[in-house]
């Protein structure tokens, strides 16, 4: 499973959305019906799944699915 597929699977498990809705440009709040608490919860799952730590300041920059993937890559996750 690629990083992208893993991230999208986590999102589908957590939010009330389908895989098809999870295009890279999708905004968590505007397109996927999440609120700020959902995003925090999702990133906690990502921390757990990929063994990284996400600081609160970094969290604020995350808007789309692509932002999450870029961020994880930056942290050295493949």
């Amino acid at each position, binding site marked *: 499973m690629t990083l992208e597929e893993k991230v999208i699977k986590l999102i589908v498990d*957590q*939010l*009330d959305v389908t895989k098809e809705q999870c295009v890279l440009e999708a905004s968590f709040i505007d397109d996927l019906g*999440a609120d700020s*608490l*959902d995003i925090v*919860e999702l990133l*906690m799952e990502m*921390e757990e799944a990929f063994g990284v730590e996400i600081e609160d300041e970094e969290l604020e920059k995350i808007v789309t699915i692509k932002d999450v993937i870029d961020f994880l890559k930056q942290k050295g996750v493949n």
Partner: protein
Amino acid sequence: MKRRVVVTGLGALTPLGNSVNQTWESAVTGKSGIGPITKFDSSSYKSQIAGEIKNFDAAQFVNKQELRRYDDFILYAIASSEMAMADAKLTIGPELSERTGVIIGSAIGGLSTIEEEFELLLNHNNPRKIPTFIVPAILANLASGNVSIRFGAKGPINCPVTACAAGTSAIGDAYKTIVYGDADIMITGGVEAAITRMAVGGFSAMRALSQRNDEPQKASRPFDKDRDGFVIAEGCGIIILEELSVALNRGARIYAELAGYGCTSDAYHVAAPPPGHEGAARSMRIAIKEAGLNPEDIDYINAHGTSTPLNDLYETQAINFLFGEHVKKLMVSSTKSMTGHMLGATGGVEAIFAVKSLHENIIPPTINLDNPGEECNLDYVPNVSRRKEINTAMSNTFGFGGVNAVLLFKKYSESQVSEE
């Protein structure tokens, strides 16, 4: 003239069924909803039985996100409110929004979430793993909060946390909110989902729970000589209250009128009622007076009747004291014999039993009443429901902290009974 309040919608989840109809059907046929605890391994607990809600599919009412976020007590309140609103054929448009309020009581709130998440916290010793949703999942007023969000109810909101009287306190406060003119419609009742290790262990430690583990369906036996404590249960009962003219204008079906509410305190002990239970008698008297009635006008009382040695004796004494000779004509039953004690939900569900008994002219029984206990001398409608035309029905609930809350429902008729 006093604003009148009527009941126009009912919704429930109980150990007897996942709707008002199923619950009522089971109650009038004298079924027990009690069984062995399945929610956790209770083998080391003194009490191993409970009235659990069975086969409830929350996904019928909420999406996946909500399912993850909410404690069961919130899910039960949302589902029961949906059923009550559908039953009332009510949608809250912009014109009603600010005149519609929500008061749903709960004794404890999200206890199972507290216990599970605290266990994880202790095991991992990592506060970063505390979920984002924990606070809004456990706060007792988040049943009301989520229901108000769901239906766009922007009027008064509250959550009485008056232990086992919470549902009745909620309905009583909702009634007054309409009488005072602060709202025209109220979504109200009680909810509880606390069949947990801490609750079962805690009530057991107080010697409050039945230990008749080998005969679960016979364990809740209010007013019986062999009663040995209450059976913990969960549930939710939600009713829709409307100011009479609002209900009439929209052609709503009216189940009954809520005509009186009495609330007093024992000022005696945190958990035990006093001998004679004078506060209970006073609450009933206040509710009757507020309805412009006399004790002789009361046909049926859905008793608190917990199946504990003290409650059933002292509640009986209070009823004898207040009603005197009229007790010969008065029916008193405890539906907890079938549902178990749903704690903060009990007032909501038993208000529904009182309303249904008025609407259907059937009195649900007190099951497992084989030999009445000492001094238990009332007509408890033992074991078999009774078909009888009635005009008034009260619901008694009493809670730790000395709370005595009583609702009085009567058959709706156009003419207003004149008040003194």
